[in-house]
């Protein structure tokens, strides 16, 4: 019997890959084996595959949702896919507690010309899956995908060594890839690295443990996705509460009510706690943490709550409540790694809007320090611009102070986007290194 009581956590996954590395087959298998592909979708894919003359069940048609993608047979944009395990979804398998998880997969194209889409999908991910073809070993593309995962500080990286069936399930082929990428990852600095030998096509080590690889003693991929510990990835130490919206009801019952609504971006909030309001620097205490469902005794990332304070201070959207003993830097100059997302290149002197937490200001690029070759990781200090899909280190100044942390410490208060004021487009994604 299915129940409503199965608790389950949310895990956001990013995958990147191209047509031939088996990414679509892998996602297709995860969806299929968790009963997330329904009959009418499967029927549609079967019919379309046959009409196109694909000669096989082309599971990429599931995720390539746009006409242009189906016409060209490529993934252009990020697609989001959902599946769930555990008692609440009616999928218990061998899991004794039946808790399971809900998964969101950001399925992104793998080619270099779509780096910006990969960065977009990776920005919110808890875990990324990089596929390696066991026959070809570590490729330029593998290293690029792993680099982007580490740049975006995705806490968990899974290297799925695919097509093991085509190398006779050879442990040596697997170990060679593990050794090479482990060395590389140590230099780049990836948090948690897991290698799993799989065959997406035949299902080895995807959902069920493979009998063909007795030398592998780790879990199959889905089991790893269900059990990897993500609660510790959140920053629970330094309180960061960007004020998003001021709740001031204009009716009698709540005449004097003034609450500051927002999403906790770091640390833990408790009634009675002393907080500092930035950038003003005024101090006060938390009177109450309100929600529609009643007051809370504690709030933590990523809860959306409304905070009432002991003192009446002038606080508005874009301000931040923080721990007075461990506060963010209040800065107007930033050094950051930027992924450029527009046709018109980034150059020194360029002026943009910068959106950081709930605060928007103007920004000017003071310098492009270097451009990163995403394949070799070499730094080109002579680069004069960042073109579409390129990544580099920039220095910029802002028209108003920003309350920042390093991206490595806090992904919410360490990230920003740049917006072109003429076109209103989002043109850059920034990860803060430092500021002053």
């Amino acid at each position, binding site marked *: *019997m*299915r129940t*409503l009581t199965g608790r*389950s*956590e*949310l895990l956001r996954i990013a995958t990147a890959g191209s047509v031939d590395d088996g990414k679509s087959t892998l996602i297709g298998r995860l969806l299929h084996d968790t009963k997330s592909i*329904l*009959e*009418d979708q499967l029927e549609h894919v079967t019919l379309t595959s046959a009409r196109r003359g694909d000669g096989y069940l082309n599971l990429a048609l599931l995720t390539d*949702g*746009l*006409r*242009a993608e*189906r016409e060209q047979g490529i993934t252009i*944009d990020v*697609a*989001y896919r959902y599946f*769930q395990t555990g008692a*609440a*979804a*009616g999928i218990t398998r061998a899991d004794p507690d039946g808790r399971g*998880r*809900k998964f*969101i997969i950001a399925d992104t194209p793998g080619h270099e010309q779509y780096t*910006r*889409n990969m*960065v*977009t999908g990776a*920005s*919110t991910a808890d875990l990324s899956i990089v596929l390696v073809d066991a026959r070809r070993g570590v490729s330029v593309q593998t290293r690029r995908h792993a680099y982007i995962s580490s740049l975006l500080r995705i806490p968990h990286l899974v290297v799925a060594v695919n097509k093991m069936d085509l190398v006779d399930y050879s442990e040596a082929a697997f170990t060679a890839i593990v050794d090479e990428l482990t060395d590389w990852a140590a230099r780049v600095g990836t948090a948690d690295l897991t290698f799993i030998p799989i065959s997406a096509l035949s299902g080895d080590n995807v959902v069920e443990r493979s009998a063909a690889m007795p030398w592998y003693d780790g879990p199959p991929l889905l089991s790893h996705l269900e059990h990897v510990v993500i609660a*510790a990835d959140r920053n*629970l*130490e330094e309180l960061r509460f960007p004020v*998003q*919206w001021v*709740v001031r*009801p*204009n009716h009698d019952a709540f005449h004097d009510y003034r609450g500051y609504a927002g*999403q906790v971006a770091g640390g*833990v909030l408790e009634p009675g706690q002393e907080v500092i309001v930035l950038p003003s620097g005024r101090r006060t205490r938390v009177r109450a943490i309100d*929600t*529609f*469902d009643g007051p809370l005794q504690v709030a*933590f990332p*990523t*809860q*959306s709550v409304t905070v009432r304070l002991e003192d009446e201070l002038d606080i508005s959207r874009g301000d931040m409540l923080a721990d*007075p*003993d461990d506060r963010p830097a209040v800065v107007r100059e930033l050094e950051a790694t930027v992924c450029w997302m527009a046709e018109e290149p980034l150059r020194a002197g360029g002026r943009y*809007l910068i959106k*950081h937490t*709930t605060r928007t200001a103007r920004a000017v690029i003071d310098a492009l320090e270097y451009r990163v070759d995403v394949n070799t990781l070499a730094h080109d200090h002579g680069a004069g611009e960042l073109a579409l899909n390129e990544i580099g280190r920039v220095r910029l100044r802002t028209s108003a102070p920003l309350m920042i942390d390093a991206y490595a410490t806090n*992904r919410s208060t360490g*990230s920003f*986007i740049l*917006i072109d004021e003429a076109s*209103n*487009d*989002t043109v850059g*994604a920034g990860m803060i290194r430092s500021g002053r």
Partner: protein
Amino acid sequence: MRIAPLSPAGRRPDRRAIAETTTVKYELTHLQALEAEAIFIMREVAAEFESPVLLFSGGKDSIVLMRLAEKAFRPGRFPFPVMHIDTGHNFPEVIAFRDRLVQQLGERLIVASVQESIDRGRVQEETGPRASRNRLQTTTLLDAIAEHGFDAAFGGARRDEERARAKERVFSFRDDFGQWDPKSQRPELWALYNGRIRRGEHVRVFPISNWTELDVWQYIAQERLALPEIYFAHEREVFERDGMVYAMHPDVALLDGEVAYRTSVRYRTVGDMTCTGAVRSHAATVTDVVAEIAATRVTERGETRADDRASEAAMEDRKREGYF
């Protein structure tokens, strides 16, 4: 610079250690995480746009949006009105439900009517046995957005519903003509939504993009939300056409070979009566429905929406024109 005094214990608590040793786990369930994300999105829109509106269809997804708006803005009022696009072929139960809900919440309701668009000559009624006002709604919607000067419109669409929607952003930009251009969508990173638009343009905002049909039903159960009764099994006079089960209503004419009969059905989606199919079901409570959804092998739009069957890219094409 002033040195902050130490807390009474002499040092600050180590939250990570606390997280591991106390019963407070600092963990959210997936529904709590999805809810927090949706509330954040709604507040971003309220803060960054001058004149938002919440599009309400009377369906389960927009009923969830109403609850999320309560969670985002109470004890204040919604900082936007609620708007219903009335095709004139709605289920009467849904219209009654809409009026009850809006009154209970004490919010403002705007009704934009497809019949008025027809009377004013803005659109022409389709003819024939398969005529539907589904497509006509787009004109009524865009006219209402222009007339009221709305610059952001919340919708209850989800990415798991349909292929084109799987590609759509949470903040989905619409040009001067209300059109969606799937090939030039703005990158959407972290929780940094870009709501900048020019006059005449608007943004459709989908706070429950990341929810699935099952999430919505689990949330309805958790929140004990009331729904229009047609979501639960009931006896109804129906007929079959193109492999779907439709309700009999005064505007329908049976074709040769079609017969009306009574059976127990419920609705998985709520749209225009002329193009929304029912499913045979005996699920009479939310718990029954959740069990049915968890076990179903067909998607909700595939089972119940004739409007998506027109072609492989039916939804993409309608969305390009400005559909919900």
